[in-house]
């Protein structure tokens, strides 16, 4: 650790250091610790046993694991070829393909599920005219385990893709060129060198997909609840929505069970990351692309086919549904109407309020978190503070664990009135903001820390020698230098928070609904048309934000934005 300046005062380096530790303790350690305590030491411990004894619990746990495993298999099946082709081949149009391929990760699950429901039902606006929709009277084939696994697989394939892509780009170029020079073709290289060397990042990506799948709420809620197929996240939601805070201890135990399953996945991910061959990281020169040659055309066609299948068709159905005058009416130029848009934009009070709430929550998180990340990243990346590095890892937990777990933890801490103030944040928008800050801190922190690693320390050191205080250096030297990464972090936080559902659905109260909640309730309440219209607007905003962030990309370290690899 480098010596800290001796000057005291609130803006000295040690003071900021302690303040940041306190923030992380309050945001991450306190709620999750409180939840763990609920599991071991809550009054009336017979509850835990009653939850664990309930058959319903184990059925839901089994459903959770089964759909997540099947989904992860599919994520690997999609993510691996995509990463290999996009990282190693000379395929044309890569930027657009990557962008399209990342969409299922950035569009919220409740909207993806809505889109697929519209695509695959008997009333499908795209399949029915072609005679491909299920016969009338046949339930939507997506309801149940198969559909949930399918969508989980598609939604989390980008996670496998990202992890493997990073691994592939770190491959030592010399090794592959040596193999090529000795006459090994693409397949040979892939089989004998590339895949064996990228097993660890692949395993890490797959574990991440698994953890994300078990924490997913929007997908199993829209596809599972109609058929009575419960997973742990939906079971927790239904209990809390149906019975209120009286069942808090019970849902706390359920969320601990979910956390334990997630921790197993996270442990496996950590193990895989550590097993990564460190000698091959930072290899420098990028690989020369493998020429696809005569295979270019069919492979490109296959890639675009997949994009059409997993992005264009469902989103197209969503768009078509949003234009229908009444549900079940075949769409044509004569019947298309903008009434559903008019309704969600101007008439529905809840949708308008939700847009404002989501903008406020996402905006506040996007403003506050990069400001926290700026000094945090400095302690982690430049000062090499071990304590702060540990704190940074703790700050990852609220993001890595399922959102439902964090939500229950926040309720446990905040349901009683705050000490000194005498106010309870439960049932207000502030509990949602606290949870958002806890959950998304790590997104801002990762981007900003990556920025520090690329920055020369000379400027800051010069300012320090000239006698500038810590906060002054942060403000006038580091903040301008890191502005692009901080902005990228802010956009990432904003985008993720704008579409948040899992935390919000358990924490919201009257007047504090978010966009995610309104789309979800409209769809579940049977107002598919308004749900589709609002979903289309949210998707449009998401894509717009992605493009906007892309314009910053040239000034960012590689990998700062997930869809610009």
């Amino acid at each position, binding site marked *: 650790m480098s010596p800290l300046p001796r000057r005291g005062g609130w803006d000295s380096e040690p003071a900021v250091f302690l303040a940041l530790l306190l923030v992380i303790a309050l945001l991450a350690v306190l709620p999750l610790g409180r939840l763990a305590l609920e599991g071991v030491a809550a009054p009336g411990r017979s509850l835990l046993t009653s939850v664990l004894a309930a058959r319903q619990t184990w059925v839901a746990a089994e459903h959770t694991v089964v759909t997540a495993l099947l989904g992860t298999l599919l994520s690997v099946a999609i993510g691996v070829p995509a990463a290999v082709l996009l990282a190693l081949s000379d395929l044309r149009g890569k930027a657009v393909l990557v962008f399209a391929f990342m969409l299922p990760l950035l569009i919220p699950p409740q909207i993806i599920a809505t889109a697929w429901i519209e695509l695959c039902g008997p009333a499908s606006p795209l399949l029915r005219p072609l005679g491909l929709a299920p016969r*009338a009277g046949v339930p939507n084939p997506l309801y149940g385990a198969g559909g949930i696994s399918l969508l989980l697989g598609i939604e989390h394939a980008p996670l496998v893709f990202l992890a493997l892509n990073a691994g592939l780009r770190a491959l030592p170029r010399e090794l592959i060129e040596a193999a090529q020079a000795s006459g090994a073709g693409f397949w040979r290289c892939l089989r004998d060198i590339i895949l064996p060397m990228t097993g660890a990042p692949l395993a890490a990506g797959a574990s991440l997909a698994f953890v994300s799948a078990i924490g997913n709420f929007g997908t199993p809620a829209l596809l599972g609840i*109609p058929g009575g197929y419960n997973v742990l996240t939906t079971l927790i939601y239904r209990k809390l929505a149906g019975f209120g805070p009286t069942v808090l201890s019970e849902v706390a135990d359920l969320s601990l069970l979910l956390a334990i399953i997630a921790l197993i996945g996270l442990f496996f991910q950590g193990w895989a990351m550590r097993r990564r061959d460190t000698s091959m990281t930072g290899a420098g020169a990028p690989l020369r692309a493998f020429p696809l040659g005569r295979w270019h055309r069919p492979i490109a066609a296959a890639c675009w086919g997949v994009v059409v299948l997993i992005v264009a068709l469902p989103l197209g159905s969503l768009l078509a549904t949003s234009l229908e005058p009444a*549900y079940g009416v075949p769409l044509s130029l004569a019947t298309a109407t903008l009434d559903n848009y008019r309704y969600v934009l101007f008439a529905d009070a809840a949708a308008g309020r939700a847009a404002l709430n989501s903008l406020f929550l996402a905006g506040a998180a996007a403003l506050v978190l990069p400001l926290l990340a700026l000094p945090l990243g400095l302690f982690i990346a430049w000062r090499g503070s071990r304590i702060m590095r540990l704190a940074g890892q703790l700050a990852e937990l609220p993001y890595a664990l399922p959102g439902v777990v964090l939500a229950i933890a926040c309720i446990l801490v905040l349901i009683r009135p705050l000490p000194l103030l005498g106010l309870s944040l439960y049932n207000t928008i502030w509990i949602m903001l606290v949870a958002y800050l806890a959950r998304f801190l790590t997104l801002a922190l990762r981007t900003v820390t990556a920025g520090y690693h690329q920055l020369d320390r000379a400027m800051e050191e010069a300012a320090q020698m000239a006698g500038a205080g810590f906060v002054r250096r942060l403000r006038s030297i580091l903040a301008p230098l890191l502005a692009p990464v901080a902005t990228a972090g802010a956009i990432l936080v904003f985008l993720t928070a704008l579409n948040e559902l899992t935390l919000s659905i358990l924490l919201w109260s009257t007047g504090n609904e978010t966009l995610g909640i309104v789309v979800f309730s409209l769809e579940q309440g049977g107002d598919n048309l308004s749900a589709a219209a609002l979903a289309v607007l949210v998707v449009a905003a998401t894509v717009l934000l992605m493009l906007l962030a892309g314009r910053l990309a040239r000034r960012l370290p590689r990998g700062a934005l997930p869809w610009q690899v």
Partner: protein
Amino acid sequence: MMKPALLAFALLLLASAAHAASGKLVLYTSQPDKIAAETVAAFTRKEPGVSLEIFRSGTTEVMNRLQAELLAGDPRPDVLFIADALTMEELKADHRLMAYPGADVVAFPADAYDKDFTYFGSKLITTGIIYNTAASRKPGSWKDLLLPQAKGQVILPSPLYSGAALIHMAAMSGDADVGKYYYAALAANGAVPARGNGAVTSAVAGGEKMYGIVVEFMALNAKAKGSPVDFVFPAEGVTAVTEPVAILKTAKNPAAAKAFVDFILSKEGQELAVRQGFFPARRDVAPPPGFPSGASLKIIPLDLHRAAAESDALKKRFAALFGG
């Protein structure tokens, strides 16, 4: 002595002073989103001083939320506007409702409102059968949903979510003709539950199921907008809820709450309900087209007090039969 005209004027002034409602009013309702939004808009046009905040969900979920708030000692709503009188009876028994003897109920039939003036039925919402026009058989009786042609083709709203669905189950189970085994027979014939009436309507309109048990206005509204559905009032009769409105004892803004009740019961409010496709409770407002006249509507009777005592048992039975 005051001249009659002057007296009338003074009374009018007094009356409008009593109605000069303002401030925040919190409404918990089970009206569908769109209809609730229209109700809010119409009320705010009439009482521009009041800012109305609403929470909406199925009656059962609205009540769960309210119960949780009562437990925490902080009930938020001033006014409740939910599907059924059953829930209102339970609240009244718990002394949660404020009596409003000043409500103008002259034009209402006596069985539309509580005799102690704690809640007021605003309309008649009946539950019958919706079917997709592609269905092989047009249903005419409740028993048609038990036929082999309807196997796996019926969807019904869950009483764990919807108040009308709870009343329907209570009334059907008490009816000698249809009988208490009706729900078990439905389950045996592969009927599935939906979260609410809206979800039933869209499942039938979208062709996922051919038949649904649903409140009439949703089916008729979907039909009017062009969805491939139709609605029948079954031969044995329909069940009905009254969508009552009530003021909570803990209301923070009773003046605005009374203004809301007045609006719902007013001729203007009832005409709005008719435009929304509802059968009005007021006798001096004509029902919307497509409805049987009030006299020819056969309603399966319901003993509210017995149903209130049974409601938990009914919900549990439904959950056991249909899994929620």
